[in-house]
């Protein structure tokens, strides 16, 4: 019989060590031993993802490693999530993320999604080549409190400004934070279109949004 600490470490390590095929099994053993699902997520899986992100920032991990770590995290989440005591949930707000219309490059978007998810945001992934209306719907119909827009293509950047305008036209601009990122995007561009924030990396996006949403320590 493993202690809770041992199993949490196993969960964390299996994410860090890219053992995506073992994650669900460890999560199940953790549950079977009667330990709390919420702790398993945040002190186990997410802890491992944060350690992976640190290695990424130190240029020891790269994109493939982060993707496999996140597969492990998601495999574990699938097992633990249904068992979380909702009243205990200190989940952060809902964030809709997507690559704007006209562009399908989504490596960057996926990394931002992983990092925000690992930090406790409830992510709605709208995918890539997403029509402007979908982002607005995510706010009006799905209750997203923030939207994260990505593109690598200069020709698609115009859609980011259009989305901000649509939010204004719908009268919901004040209810939502808009953050933008991607190759041709700059802080100046973000300011010009009236976005609330811009970050250059996926890890930075977490502290950016935490600051805006009031989650910063």
């Amino acid at each position, binding site marked *: 019989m493993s202690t809770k600490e041992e199993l949490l470490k196993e969960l964390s390590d299996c994410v860090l060590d*890219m053992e995506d095929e073992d994650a669900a099994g460890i999560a199940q053993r953790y549950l079977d031993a009667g330990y709390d699902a919420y702790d398993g997520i945040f002190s186990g899986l997410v802890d491992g993802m944060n350690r992976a992100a640190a290695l990424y920032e130190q*240029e*020891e*991990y*790269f*994109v*493939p*490693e982060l*993707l*496999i770590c996140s*597969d492990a995290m998601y495999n574990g989440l699938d097992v633990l999530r249904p068992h979380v005591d909702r009243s205990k949930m200190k989940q952060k707000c809902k964030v809709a993320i997507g690559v704007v219309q*006209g*562009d*399908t490059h989504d*490596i960057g978007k*996926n990394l931002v999604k992983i990092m925000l998810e690992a930090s406790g945001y409830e992510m709605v992934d709208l995918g890539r080549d997403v029509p402007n209306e979908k982002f607005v719907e995510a706010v009006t119909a799905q209750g997203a409190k923030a939207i994260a827009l990505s593109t690598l*293509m*200069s*020709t698609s950047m115009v859609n980011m400004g259009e989305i901000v305008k649509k939010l204004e036209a719908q009268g919901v601009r004040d209810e939502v934070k808009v953050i933008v990122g991607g*190759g*041709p*995007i*700059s802080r*100046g*561009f973000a300011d010009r279109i009236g976005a609330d924030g811009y970050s250059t990396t996926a890890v930075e996006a977490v502290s950016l949004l935490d600051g805006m949403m009031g989650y910063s320590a």
Partner: protein
Amino acid sequence: MSKDEMTPAERGAAIAQGKDADRLPCNPNIANGVARIYGCKISEFNHDPKAIAKSQMAAYERFGSDSLRVFTDLFTWAEAMGAKVNFPDDDTADLEEPAIHDVNEIDKLRPADPHKDGRLPVHLEAMKYLKEYSAGIMGCSAGVVGPFTNTFFLCGVDQTLKLTHKNPDAIRRLCEISLETCEAYVEAAMEIGLAPTISEPMSSCTVVSPKVFRELSLPYLKELVDFIHAHGFNPVVHICGQTNRIWKDVADLGIAGWSIDNVASITECKRLVGDTTKIMGNVDPGSIMFSGTPQDVRLKTLEAMREGYDNPSGYVVMSGCSLPVETPFENIDAMMDVVREVGYPVTEEKIDELLAKYRDAE
């Protein structure tokens, strides 16, 4: 009316021979933005070889830039091997679906025939026109993606990223077959008289580790470079993003130039490989060339020149990567004009003088 005293060919030859020249060579790296200059839609490049060649010439005539290259997007070779590509009316082509979805389909893949498959024949035709139009002005180049990058479009980007860990042998097999396609294509290009340039974006340290690069990309990149050398040409290699940890590996292939992106440091690159390798770069294509003002462009171009001008193996002023399609013409003019203003030979004093002048103007 040309603003320059020399053609790019004369300039290149003079600098190579240590003679006087009018200015450093400068390649803003306009990419498919050339369609905006020539006045056609980008989708015309998919079937009209003359549009490709004439757009390249239009960019040269408009800006005096030191590069003519046949290259429209990264997916041309994978498409010729079975990948599906999406062709917007007036934007750069994009991967819609990889050629295969599972590694057990690798055996179904065949190397492309550059004279038959996909848009490769259109590109070869464009090379013949471009060669004809540019006679006496400058040598032209033929862009190709490296074998490792091509595998991502054969097998899907996310899956291939994971295969670098899960099944490196599958990557090797995909690289082998991609290499055959690359070699057949550059051989046809060299027969027409164009010098290959290799783009290997997925080898970037921003994407994969130097270890993955060395094991799964470098051996095939080396074969491609050796193949090009054996045909009497020497390629420039461009890799996007950060590349500091693989500069030496690529420089050791004996290439004609290392084209580095804006997040990489020219100063560091010069220190590490400048004795053997020409450096090209690295004004930020997004936040400066596309989004900045002409003033920003002048300052950043001068700063890049200050770092690169004394590289022992030579330096070409360039953007860090292909320019966004909608980059303002006035910014491209600003880059070219400030290189003209520095003139030749380049000295630190001259650059500092101009930096002071333009900083004061802010």
